[in-house]
């Protein structure tokens, strides 16, 4: 149904530690390196962003909990490289012994990085049907949350908002559907909406903050009409 990354509303995580003055962007030099190899390997085009997110989410819960942020990135990258057949599993055994090959034509060149990072890649697509819901419509989210195409697959309906009554705030265009795209089953674009949920609906009676709300971006197939 859900995985360990889906932590909205969970108890027990303790206090948030705001940044110390002059905190560095990368706590350790290898953090920067982990970010850079992830982006450079992503530029090979062998997977998409949804697949990349899913690769982090599907780490065993024990690893997800004990790994720091960039350790999750590294583990997910290693898994993706093998699953997408970019690297053979035995090549991880003794990297220094691998023969040096010429730079692939698909590799991101140092000279192209600035252009590549400044590139805007919209996740919106044209579709022929019209959005089913309009601003102000009442909707209820699917329950249980979870991918309906692949068991244990990627989804973006957080468990804390499953089965809840909300109101459409705005239609955001037709966006690539992560539940399908993460598994290379096609982009399958769907209308996307910002949906408002009152704190009371999500968490029950909330002292001093009954007027507060959470807005979540949700794809049409996560929603049913509740007008």
């Amino acid at each position, binding site marked *: 149904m859900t995985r360990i990354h889906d932590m909205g509303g969970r108890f027990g*995580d303790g206090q948030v530690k705001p940044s110390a003055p002059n905190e560095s962007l990368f706590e350790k030099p290898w953090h920067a390196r982990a970010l850079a190899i992830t*982006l450079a390997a992503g530029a090979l085009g062998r997977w998409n962003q949804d697949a990349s*997110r899913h690769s982090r989410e599907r780490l065993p819960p024990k690893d997800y909990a004990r790994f720091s942020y960039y350790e999750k990135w590294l583990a997910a990258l290693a898994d993706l490289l093998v699953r997408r057949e970019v690297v053979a599993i035995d090549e991880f055994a003794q990297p220094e012994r691998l023969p040096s090959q010429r730079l692939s034509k698909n590799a991101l*060149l*140092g000279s192209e990085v600035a252009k590549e990072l400044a590139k805007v890649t919209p996740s919106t697509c044209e579709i022929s049907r019209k959005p089913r819901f309009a601003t102000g419509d009442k909707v209820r989210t699917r329950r249980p949350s979870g991918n309906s195409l692949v068991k244990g697959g990627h989804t973006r309906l957080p468990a804390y908002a499953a089965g809840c009554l909300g109101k459409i705030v705005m239609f955001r265009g037709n966006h690539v559907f992560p539940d399908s795209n993460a598994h290379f089953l096609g982009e399958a674009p769907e209308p996307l909406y910002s949906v408002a949920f009152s704190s009371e609906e999500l968490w029950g009676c909330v002292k*001093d903050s009954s007027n507060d709300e959470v807005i979540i971006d949700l794809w049409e197939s996560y929603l049913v009409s509740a007008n």
Partner: protein
Amino acid sequence: MPHDHCESDHPHNLLPSDPELRVKALETVLVKKGLVDPAALDAIIEIYENRVGPRNGARVVAKSWCDDEFRSELLEDASSAVGKLGYSGRQGAHLVAVENSPEVHNVVVCTLCSCYPWPLLGIPPAWYKSDPYRSRMVREPRKVLKEFGLEIESGRKVRVWDSTAEIRYLVVPMRPEGTENFTESDLADWVTRDSMVGTGLPKPPASQ
């Protein structure tokens, strides 16, 4: 229904467990196989360390405080408005600016991962990616904001945006009182990173 691969299939276990050695091993494999240009790695780090960061967002906010036409454009279509200032790119195709007011305080979280408007704010800080922030901001935003030193009056609505799709939210804080005669560039110095996520307020450069 297909199942999501074999659950025991986690090739990362074959790499060294020390993260520093793990990065090195991955980098070596990718470079030896000709899949990654080492110069690209240095260039990526240089850009996020020096060029793309919260100063971009601060300039956008300061401009919206000084220029009504830009403010309307920003609230209408933020990607287009900030694109004209040269701020575009990865994690920024669908930017949305949400403005604070005496009635509403906005704050942004990503409970499922760490989605963040990179072209305007750069790489997210550690707290934004931390479990306590991700788990608690949707359930008890007022309490979490207090941990940042921010108390929201009880009559004011707290609106939490959980970034579950490719929409990336920028909070536009309210212009501080007493800054009427400030130039746009002076104002930009008041706009902190946290004020654009909703966990802080603009403050004088000396107290940041």
